[in-house]
């Protein structure tokens, strides 16, 4: 007999109806996400600053060249990210050349795998806790948990970008799913295989982006709590492998790997930015944050602490701090969103399946026992509230185009006014600094204007160099990618970049054309640009003004 059969029929009907409404709304967000991904996959230029440089990393690796080179000498290029994401894309580079679509498609698919993993974990954990759980309700909650992850404005923004961050949280989520019950595996060979798989995923995640270190901390802490000896032995092996790869990269790149992935990531801490992003995260995700925290409290006082809880606390706290560094953004919270969706999903699934059990202790005597007589009524109320949690979350994270077939009609019916570029509505607004100014769809005019910039570059002699702040225009005109402005800027700020050679080239007007978007170059470079070059045209594209500069006479 399943639990739902013991729920009064009218309550069950209300529960199913509300759950369907929640799923429909989250599914609508998923449709918006697919439309957005499809739009971006077809866009041939940088959508988010830095995508082109990640593509350049892929192209360098596909030619067996290192992206971790000396940034003080021509072509002044260096990457601050580890190589795994780019390595995965190398076969595509061999097949298709320098294209944006495969990197964006790859990222998009990794978010779908992450969402499916979240759903599967919620489903698995529900049946571990309550083997006779209601199949329909459990599946509904599991699907809602996965969709909730994709519905987060933070995940939506970056999901289909040519950036390494996205596949990182797939590897993190898969690793957590592998480690969750590894200590309970009785067969030693199987347990070792799973540990090896989990640590392998962690190493890949860490060498996709450094932030995966937060997940590694959480997992090592979890293993230590459950089995200190095993944690120390495997943790030591993990550290040796991780450090070995790091040392190898540092030696083979003549120290540039260290400078670019470590030194260039020691940036100023901006308190206002950290607080603003934390508040934004809370505003958007509060509806799921509450059940996630309740699940955490439950585990601390009435159950064993799961890897999900430790993962959530570690990634939330550490990401909140890391999000305050210069150049960071809302995307730093994406891993904690995944952890939050799992924890809240387990809480909600357990509630609708009436799977709560409380150990006898002083907390139960104070908080649970006084309400014992009202338990049936409280349970039914909580069951009805659970789908409302997802509906509230869907409302809080609402984002959609207000133009285009279907979307325009929906926007008109519900009175949704655009508050972002190209007629896009984003519930997060643009109120917080470092909140990514992306999520909108690109237009045909953006592509036309991008091609206009390409035309301007093609108009200069082929032997003249191009200094473009975005690599897209170098690829589109078959010219060498010169500089990675943000890397130069950061290293300049920490005193590890001497811009003399680049400034000298600007003085000599070695570049036939300069294309700027945000002037992320170090101050001496920007001064040299303004001294020896003049702006001749501004071409808008994707919400940004691209400045075209020619040498002064």
């Amino acid at each position, binding site marked *: 007999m399943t639990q739902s059969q013991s729920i009064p029929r009218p309550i069950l009907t209300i529960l199913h109806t509300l759950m369907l409404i929640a799923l429909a709304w989250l599914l609508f967000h998923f449709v918006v996400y697919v439309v957005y991904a499809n739009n971006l996959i077809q866009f041939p230029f940088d959508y988010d600053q830095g995508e082109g440089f990640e593509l350049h990393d892929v192209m360098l690796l596909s030619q067996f060249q290192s992206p971790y080179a000396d940034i003080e000498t021509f072509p002044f290029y260096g990457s601050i990210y580890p190589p795994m994401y780019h390595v995965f894309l190398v076969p595509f580079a061999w097949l298709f050349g320098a294209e944006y679509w495969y990197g964006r498609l790859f990222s998009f698919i990794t978010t779908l795998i992450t969402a499916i993993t979240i759903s599967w974990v919620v489903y698995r954990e529900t049946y571990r806790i309550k083997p006779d759980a209601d199949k329909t309700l459990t599946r509904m909650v599991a699907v809602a948990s996965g969709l909730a992850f994709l519905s987060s404005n933070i995940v939506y923004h970056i999901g289909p970008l040519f950036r390494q961050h996205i596949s990182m949280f797939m590897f993190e989520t898969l690793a957590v799913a592998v480690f969750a019950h590894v200590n309970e595996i009785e067969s030693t060979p199987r347990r070792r295989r799973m540990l090896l798989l989990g640590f392998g995923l962690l190493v890949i995640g860490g060498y996709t982006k450094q932030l995966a270190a937060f997940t590694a901390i959480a997992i090592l802490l979890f293993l230590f709590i459950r089995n200190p000896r095993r944690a120390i032995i495997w943790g030591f092996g993990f550290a040796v492998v991780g450090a070995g790869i790091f040392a190898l990269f540092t030696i083979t790149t003549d120290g540039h790997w260290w400078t670019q992935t470590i030194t260039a990531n020691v940036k100023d801490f901006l308190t206002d930015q*950290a607080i603003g992003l934390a508040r934004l995260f809370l505003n958007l995700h509060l509806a799921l944050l509450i059940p996630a925290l309740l699940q955490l409290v439950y585990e*601390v006082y009435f159950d*064993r*602490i799961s890897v999900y809880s430790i993962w959530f606390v570690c990634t939330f706290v550490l990401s909140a*701090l890391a999000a305050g560094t210069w150049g960071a953004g809302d995307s730093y919270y994406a891993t904690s969103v995944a952890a939050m969706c799992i924890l809240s999903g387990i809480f909600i699934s357990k509630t609708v399946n009436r799977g709560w059990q409380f*150990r006898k*202790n002083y907390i139960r005597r104070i908080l649970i026992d006084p309400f014992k007589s009202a338990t049936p009524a409280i349970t039914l109320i909580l069951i009805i509230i659970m789908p409302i949690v997802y509906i509230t979350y869907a409302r809080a994270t609402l984002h959609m185009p207000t133009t285009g077939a279907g979307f325009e009609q929906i926007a008109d019916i519900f009175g949704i006014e655009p508050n972002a570029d190209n007629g896009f509505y984003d519930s997060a607004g643009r109120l917080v600094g470092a909140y990514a100014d992306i999520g909108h769809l690109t237009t045909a005019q953006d592509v036309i204007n991008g091609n206009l910039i390409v035309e301007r570059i093609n108009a200069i002699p082929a032997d003249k160099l191009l200094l473009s702040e975005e690599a897209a225009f170098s690829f589109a005109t078959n010219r060498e990618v010169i500089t990675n402005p943000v890397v130069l800027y950061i290293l300049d700020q920490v005193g590890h970049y001497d811009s003399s050679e680049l400034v000298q080239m600007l003085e000599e007007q070695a570049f036939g054309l300069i294309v700027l978007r945000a002037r992320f170059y170090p101050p001496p470079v920007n001064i040299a640009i303004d001294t020896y070059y003049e702006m001749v045209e501004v071409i808008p594209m994707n919400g940004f003004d691209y400045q075209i500069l020619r040498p002064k006479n």
Partner: protein
Amino acid sequence: MAIGALGTLAIFAIDVIDVGREGGIGPIQTVGLVIMVSLALLGLTLIPLGDDPA
């Protein structure tokens, strides 16, 4: 609880050891203090639960 208490002391110790620093307790230190004090308080509430495995 021990981690929380020791962590709190360690964060205050930064100002004692490195007295030449500017600005007193900084934002990161404040966050660290909140986390460590919270950990210590959490540990206190867990003591009455006895030997239940975490």
